[in-house]
Structure formats: C-alpha cells, structure tokens
C-alpha cells in the first residue's frame, strides 16, 4: 500500500477497488478469510427492529465463521458445514449493522472452535502476520490475523477457553472476552454453551470499547443474557489495587519478561500491587476440558447429515448415514472431543468426571471471589509461549490444551478478561491479560489505556497499518 487510507473511506465508491485489491494481496500470504466479499457485505441490513446509530458508520469488519451473517457461509472451519449458508444474522452482528458497520467477510478458525492454532481448520491455513511460519493462535486465529495484518480495524471472535485472547496475544492486538451473558450468543454455533462468549479483536482501544458497547445487551433470543447496565460498576478512576498472579507459572523467557515489565509499569503508574495465588489454577484445565467436551458432545449431536451438515453420497440405513456423515464431516480434534465428552457423561463415570469438574468450577469461583474482595483488577499471563510454529515444530495438541490454564479461568468463572499487547520480543508479539469482576469491562479498558502510554507496541513489519484517522500505536 502506498498511502494510508481512512477506514471510513475504504468501502466508499472511490476507495473500494483499491481496498479489495490490497486485502487480497495481503491475505494471499496470511489466509485469514474463508470468504471475503465486501460488495455483498455492503448489502447486509439488520433484519430485526433495532435502533440504528452512526457509531460505526462505514467501518469494515470481519466475523469469525461460527457467527452467523445472513447470506454468507457459516462453516465453523469444518467440512461438515462447508456449504451451509446462514439464513439469518447473529444478534451481535445485527447490532453492528445497525451501527453502520460493514461486514467484509468470514474468518478462518479451528474446526468448531476446537484448537489453539487455527491449524485444525479443514478449510484453510492461517499464518501469523508477524512471522508467516508461525500460527496465528486459535481458535479465532483468522479474526486476530485479519486485524493484525491491517485488513480490518476490528473483528468478532468467540472465546470458550481463551479463543479470542490467545490469538490476539499471538498477533499483537487487543482481545476482549466479555462477561458471560453481556453479549447475546444468538446466531453463534454452539460448542460449549456455559463457557463461550462472543468477543472482540481490535488493533486500537477505542474500537474495542465502541464495539463492545454496541454489541452488549440483553436479548430475548438468548435467555442467558443480562442487561449489562444493571450490573456494571464504572469505578474506573478508583482502580488502585491490582492482584498479580505469582508462583511457578512456567512461562517462556519472552513471555516472562513482558509479564515482569507490565508489573513494573503498573507500579510506575501508581497502582498498588498485591501478589496472589489461585489454589485451583492447576485444576482449571482438566475441569475446563471435562465440561467443554461434555457440552460439545451434546451440542454437536445435531450434525448428523439429517438435521444439519454433510450428507454422504450413499448409505444402507439411517445409522450408517449418520455415522458416515460424522466420519467424513468431522476432523480428528473434533472427534477426540466428542469422544471425551461422551465418555465423561456416560453412566458410571459422571460423578467421577463431570460432577467433580463442576465442583472444581465452584472452588475456582470462590478463588476469584476472594481475589476481587481484595483487589480491583487481576493480572495474569495469556499463554505460556509466544506464537509457535505450524506443524511438528510447534506444540502438540496435548501441550496446547495444558497451556490453556491462564485463559480457561475466565470462562469457568464467567468473568471478563482482556488480552493486551505489550511489545515485541524475538520478532513476535508479547502480551498479558487482565481480569475484572463481572460486568466491569470498563475497568479493563481503563487499565489498557493507561498502560498503553508506557508501552512500545510496533506493528508487523510486512503489514504496516493501512489507515489513518485513528490514534497511532506508539
């Protein structure tokens, strides 16, 4: 790109051609989009009766491919839904449409959100804009990569166990997992219903905040939503004490360095630091995977070639039709998680696994009740490593799961968490995350804003910002 463009002008009649050409050129390397079609996106209108605003007028954005956008595919990165076109849009999408945002396409993801690299997608490979030999993280890897590569200023993702925060962290952008119930899940293809939330990835804090404030709301189509305004506590200015997770965290050097640096910056900014430990932390991941796979095994039962999904060419009987559909439609990671979920819910094993996991969830909630009775915010790492390599040079699937220990806590407890970029180490982004009490997202934005002035974030060398008009990254 030879000159910077204003996001509001990218899809105006004069700018659209150049924007599409530039995105296609960049995305041929990154692979963030599964479907990219701004002219079709411009036709999208909110179907429900919603209040319209100009909050995001003309701003292009991307949507993870497990969130419905009318007349676009909804593949979940799976062969199972490779040809499924959504007849309606998710509530969160409708709200952005009503605010004037323009969806330009659907982004790649780990199949059904199951993975930490986007490499389990059956439909494409996404690479990290900072280093194309590395993964973008996952499962919202396409959304994070699209934002980091400067293709869109923000994107929607989903976070079930860290799937917005970890890819945001790997790609050096902001990733918000809102409080459970703050954003409607209507139009999100269910994976683990009690854990997942729609979240936001953005390169700049103002977009993050604006988009969250646009999509959060009670929704009669999702009975687990709550009216955020009834519970939020805007005591941003009164945030003075930050809990910092300490102990043996097992972080790679670049991550550990960034973590220590943020702690120092917080002190320099005048925050009081309280060292804290989470007694249940080591049990969060086994409890998380027990609950998530159990819920997945039930939620994915609908993909059987009859109700939804890939239909085999030929089968002798209904049972064979279902089995063939699932055998041909699902990838190995999805099969693994369905098998695990079925196993932990089997009679005779339920108390041993599923019930115990739910009780550990209670213990973790209590850990955090204690944390937030003492401090206003909580600092912890996002992931023990920076972006790892594609394929055998990276982390194996089991290592990736164990590494979810810092992110799954927010999903098990329902609390909001924000991954923030802190800089670059060894050519790859570093970052940390903050958690806050339920519905206190404003505190997270405030912490991010204050820290930003003390950090040097940089941008991917091959993918400089396309746009002007936003506050620059220092």
């Amino acid at each position, binding site marked *: 790109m030879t000159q910077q463009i204003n996001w509001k002008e990218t899809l105006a009649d004069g700018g659209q051609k150049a924007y599409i050409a530039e995105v296609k050129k960049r995305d041929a390397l990154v692979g963030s989009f599964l479907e990219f079609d701004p002219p079709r996106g411009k036709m999208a209108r909110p179907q429900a009766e919603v209040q319209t605003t100009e909050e995001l007028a003309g701003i292009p954005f991307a949507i993870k491919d497990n969130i419905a956008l009318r007349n676009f595919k909804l593949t979940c990165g799976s062969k199972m839904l490779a040809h499924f076109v959504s007849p309606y849009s998710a509530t969160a999408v409708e709200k952005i449409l009503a605010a004037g945002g323009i969806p330009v396409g659907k982004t790649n993801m780990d199949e059904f959100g199951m993975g930490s690299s986007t490499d389990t997608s059956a439909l494409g490979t996404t690479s990290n804009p900072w280093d194309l030999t590395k993964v973008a993280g996952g499962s919202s890897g396409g959304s994070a990569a699209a934002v980091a590569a400067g293709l869109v200023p923000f994107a929607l993702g989903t976070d079930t166990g860290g799937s917005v925060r970890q890819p945001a962290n790997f790609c050096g952008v902001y990733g918000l997992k809102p409080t459970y119930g703050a954003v409607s899940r209507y139009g999100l293809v269910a994976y683990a219903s009690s854990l997942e939330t729609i979240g936001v990835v953005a390169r700049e804090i103002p977009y993050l905040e604006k988009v969250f404030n646009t999509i959060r709301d009670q929704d009669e189509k999702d009975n687990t939503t709550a009216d955020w305004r009834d519970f939020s506590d805007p005591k941003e200015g009164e945030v003075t004490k930050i809990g910092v997770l300490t102990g043996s965290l097992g972080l790679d050097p670049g991550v550990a360095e960034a973590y220590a640096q943020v702690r120092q910056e917080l002190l320099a900014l005048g925050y009081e630091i309280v060292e804290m430990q989470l007694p249940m932390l080591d049990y969060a991941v086994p409890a998380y995977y027990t609950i998530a796979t159990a819920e997945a095994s039930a939620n994915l039962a609908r993909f059987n070639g009859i109700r939804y999904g890939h239909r085999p060419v030929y089968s002798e009987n209904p049972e064979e039709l279902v089995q063939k559909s699932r055998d041909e439609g699902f990838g190995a990671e999805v*099969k693994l998680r369905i098998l695990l979920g079925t196993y932990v819910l089997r009679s005779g094993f339920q108390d041993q696994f599923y019930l115990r996991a739910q009780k550990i969830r*209670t213990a973790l909630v209590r850990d955090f009740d204690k944390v937030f009775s003492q401090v206003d915010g909580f600092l912890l790492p996002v992931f023990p490593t920076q972006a790892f390599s594609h394929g055998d040079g990276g982390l194996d699937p089991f290592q990736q799961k164990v590494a979810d220990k810092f992110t799954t806590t927010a999903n098990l407890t329902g609390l909001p968490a924000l991954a923030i970029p802190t800089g670059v180490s060894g050519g790859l982004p570093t970052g940390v995350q903050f958690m806050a009490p339920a519905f206190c997202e404003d505190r997270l934005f405030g912490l991010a804003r204050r820290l930003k002035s003390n950090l040097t974030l940089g941008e991917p060398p091959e993918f400089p910002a396309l746009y002007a008009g936003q506050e620059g990254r220092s």
Partner: protein
Amino acid sequence: MDIAELYTTAELAQIKLEDSEVESLGGEVSQMVAYFKKMMEVSVDALEPTTHAFIKKNRLRPDTFHPSTLADDILEQSPDLEDRFICIPNVL
C-alpha cells in the same frame, strides 16, 4: 482406556472409528482421561456443582406467539426440496 471402552464410547457418540484411527485417537483419549484424573487430588465434598457462572435458576420466557419470516429461508437450506417438502435420502 481399553479398546472395548473406546468402541462403546464411539458407538454412543455415533462416530465410526476407522482401524487407522483407533491407535492415534485411542491414545489421545487415554492421555486426556488420565489428565482428567488429576481432579481427584481435590477434595470436593463440601462443594455444590456450578453448572453456570451466574444463572442459578432456569430462566423462562412468556409462552407467546411471535411471527417468524425465516421458514422459507430455512427450507432453502435443504439439499433436496420438493415444493415445501424436504426430501430425505433413500436409505432402504
């Protein structure tokens, strides 16, 4: 997990295990189940289960009629449609 347990679980999950998958998938399932057993280290006797972070009781909506305009669009999703009927595959 022994092979018989794996096959029983796969049958319940309506997943057909190819011979080539038994070893790799079976190994990964066993590895995860062994990892789940780490939860046995915690005493959970005094704890109630949490099924949901904030919602403690079921929420219901009023049982009222809402018109939907989605029916035709949803029917269009069917791979084989005759008028407003969905044709199912021949499995006889």
